[in-house]
């Protein structure tokens, strides 16, 4: 399962997170910000979700942001990294998004904050999430989108071409919002919506950004990334290139994070859905000219 499209090295994703768990509180700004924005969406839903899962919980940011929202009574927090799960507290599980260990129809709500962009087999993970949801259960997930770290991508490219005569993928590829809705639909979700949001963070210099990414456990885990240590010359070149291309008049540099938010429901009979072809009860011609009348001829 999933081995045919192995973009990310999941062992490395886990390693990055295990390492980041040691000092996460100093670098979890982005996780906290997107967790707040994610759970605020529950305010627009007039329903209660007694049993919820936070999939890819990092240090438990979503759990803390929830703070009684959505009528959540039981929250299970799961992360690929046991060290992160330990940090989150409460009911915790270490698990892989690509191999979910939950029985069918376990949850009323699945939340996921900035984690699904590290999954190789996203369609497979979505199908498993849908099955873990009860009928009419809600998936509410953010992941990093394709615009994320566009400045850093540019700076690394320039530095590697100059210092090493070739460029490999330095910054992980992220999801394209145009794919997201279709993916949800193919995974069997109803009423799928994907929307994007941009957060621009200002840093004193690019080095500080790189340190932060490492602190979040969000550095590159592409399977065919360049292995081994980054050469110092290349790193300094990239930091300088970043500064040159993007610094404002105070010398600070922006870093773009695009979040793609997925909202979708596990199918249920009570949800609105299109009628089957031929299932209309009113003639189109009647609806267009004057009073609609019921269809009188019986179906073939």
């Amino acid at each position, binding site marked *: 399962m999933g081995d045919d499209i192995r973009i990310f090295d999941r062992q490395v994703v886990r390693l990055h997170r295990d390492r980041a768990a040691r000092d996460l509180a100093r670098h979890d700004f982005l996780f906290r910000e997107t967790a707040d924005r994610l759970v605020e969406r529950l305010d627009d839903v007039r329903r209660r979700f007694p049993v919820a899962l936070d999939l890819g919980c990092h240090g438990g940011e979503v759990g803390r942001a929830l703070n009684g929202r959505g009528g959540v009574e039981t929250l299970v927090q799961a992360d690929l990294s046991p060290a992160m799960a330990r940090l989150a507290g409460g009911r915790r*599980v270490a698990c892989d998004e690509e*191999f979910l260990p939950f029985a069918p129809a376990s949850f009323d709500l699945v939340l996921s904050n900035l984690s699904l962009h590290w999954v190789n087999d996203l369609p497979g993970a979505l199908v498993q999430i849908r099955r873990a949801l009860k009928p009419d259960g809600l998936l509410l997930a953010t992941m990093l989108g394709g615009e994320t770290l566009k400045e850093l991508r540019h700076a690394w490219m320039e530095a590697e071409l100059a210092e090493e005569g070739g460029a490999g993928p330095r910054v992980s590829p992220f999801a394209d919002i145009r794919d997201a809705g279709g993916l949800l639909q193919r995974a069997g979700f109803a009423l799928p919506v994907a929307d994007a949001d941009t957060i621009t963070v200002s840093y004193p210099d690019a080095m500080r950004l790189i340190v932060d990414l490492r602190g979040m456990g969000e550095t590159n885990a592409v399977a065919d990334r360049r292995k081994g240590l980054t050469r110092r010359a290349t790193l300094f070149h990239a930091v300088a290139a970043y500064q040159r291309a993007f610094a404002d008049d105070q010398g600070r540099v922006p870093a773009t994070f695009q979040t793609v938010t997925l909202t979708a429901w596990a199918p249920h009979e009570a949800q609105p859905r299109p009628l089957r072809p031929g299932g209309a009860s009113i003639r189109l011609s009647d609806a267009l000219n004057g009073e609609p009348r019921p269809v009188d001829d019986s179906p073939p």
Partner: protein
Amino acid sequence: MTPALDPKLLEILVCPLTKGPLRYDRERQELVSDKAGLAFPIRDGIPIMLADEARPLDETETRS
């Protein structure tokens, strides 16, 4: 003393590979998937449901 596994978790957890049921071995603090032949460790009350952390069962252990 080892913390007991949360009953709510026990209720919803299944084997990540086979999606089959799990047996709770309180003594060894493991969740056993007979079908997959794997025992998933529970550390500090946290079930580690990762295949590469699981202990392969030997023949005498499987019940199915």
